[in-house]
């Protein structure tokens, strides 16, 4: 499924001062069907807002996002989200956490279980079906989070810094896992992160946003062969791309520090 953002503006009205705050300004981009796109940018630049808009949880003030030419009106079965915090239900087993979306969308019981068991296997958690979230490590919980999103077989997967809570080593291993799962499922994916190496490692294209109000600063295609291994991160080619992106984002960080810039929150 092809995703297209057409001059998207999002403005918030701040409850205390009643002032309008611009989160996204004239955002335009296209994500081709089956592509993995990473979105990077300084914190507070509206990355999560952008995902919420694509998910249909938030309406843009102006502009629209299209899925295969159809404007997004609200949440839909063709999209699913993976959250930064695993947000699992502590009172449900892993199996029943994975079936949650299917349950809400009224899939028949047996089908729910079949799908969930397959996905638990895909994310490498076989044997943990009847465990409870508190018995799992952070990395395992994020696997459940991913399986839950994949369960409703969305055509677009929206990932909001899913690895932010993990330690550095687990983070690297999970990057490889996400790539493996993506290669097997081939979903159009929008992946928000603030780590440049993670963005480059995973993506077909990196969209760099500017500081607030966020707008697309650059779109960088990553033409590295797949499947990519962690070894690739040591290659000169990888470093060149990473430096290039870092320079672009550094400019934005500098802007944030300037006096008089919109440095709110």
């Amino acid at each position: 499924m092809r995703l297209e953002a057409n001059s998207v503006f999002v403005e918030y009205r701040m409850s205390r001062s009643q002032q309008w705050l611009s989160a996204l300004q004239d955002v335009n981009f296209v994500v081709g069907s089956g592509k993995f796109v990473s979105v990077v940018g300084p914190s507070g630049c509206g990355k999560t807002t952008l995902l919420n808009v694509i998910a249909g949880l938030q309406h843009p003030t102006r502009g629209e996002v299209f899925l295969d030419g159809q404007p997004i009106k609200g949440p839909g079965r063709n999209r699913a989200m993976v959250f930064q915090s695993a947000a699992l239900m502590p009172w449900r087993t892993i199996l029943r956490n994975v079936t949650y979306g299917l349950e809400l969308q009224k899939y028949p019981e047996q089908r729910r279980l079949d799908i969930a068991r397959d996905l638990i296997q895909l994310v490498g958690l076989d044997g943990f079906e009847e465990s409870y979230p508190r018995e799992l490590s952070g990395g395992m919980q994020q696997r459940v989070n991913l399986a839950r999103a994949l369960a409703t077989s969305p055509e677009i997967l929206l990932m909001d810094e899913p690895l932010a809570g993990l330690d550095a080593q687990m983070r690297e291993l999970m990057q490889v896992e996400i790539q493996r799962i993506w290669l097997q499922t081939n979903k159009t994916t929008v992946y928000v992160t603030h780590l440049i190496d993670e963005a480059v490692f995973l993506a077909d294209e990196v969209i760099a946003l500017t500081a607030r109000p966020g707008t697309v600063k650059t779109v960088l295609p990553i033409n590295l062969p797949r499947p990519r291994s962690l070894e690739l991160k040591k290659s000169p080619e990888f470093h060149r791309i990473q430096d290039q992106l870092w320079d672009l984002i550094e400019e934005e960080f500098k802007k944030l520090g300037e006096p008089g810039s919109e440095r709110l929150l």
Partner: protein
Amino acid sequence: MNLPSQHFFSPRAIANFYHRYENTLLALAAVLVFLFLWELLPAIGLANPFFTSSPSRIVAAAGWLFAHGFWNDIFVSLEEFAIGMGLAILFSIPLGLLLGWYRRLNAMFEPFVTLFNAMPRVALIPLIILWLGIGTQSKVAAVFLGAFFPLVINVMAGVKTVDETLLKCARSFGATDRQVFKTLALPTCLPFLVAGMRLALGRGLVGVVVGEMLASTAGVGHMMTLASSSFQTDKMFVGLILLAGFGYVLTDLLKHLEKRFASWRS
């Protein structure tokens, strides 16, 4: 053949046993000493059993009561209490969910909930008796009024703790309000409801006893008022001990229930 018994009663085994059950043993000893003194003081003339009664007198009174229809009083009180509590739980869940969830409903009903909760609800019982008569219904209402508000307030507080990201997750799957209530709000509220039940049980017991004492034809509270008006201290103590024991057992059961819910959280 002798070995096992030697083993069980060796000083070491006794010491082990003591350390293992120290708290229980100490509590038991204190209760036994108390009962002993309670029996002894009236017997040697240091206290007037007309006022203090004594364990042996209470046991005798209990024997007489159970032989003369006390079961019916207990049954009536239990029924009133159970129906009142059941209704309070049944109604507090939906109302608490709605008031906790919808800001405008909360704004409208919050004054009522706060006012009723702050009011000493036993003061309402004479009015309830006027409305519903001296039968079971007025006591059911008294229990309900006692138990309902602590439950509602706890459920309302529980709703507000629903995980924001989980809510976002449910919405992104296209969940309806009803589905969000059922799958997220309700399970999140359950531990709060159980915590509220501890308070509600006490308030409900006050409701049933005071109701029966004010106007009724049966029940444990009714028996106690009759006993009081005919100076039968022993019988009043039977009622007191029964009520205390009942409250104790229920609170203990709730503790176990709370532990089960607490195990969700790491």
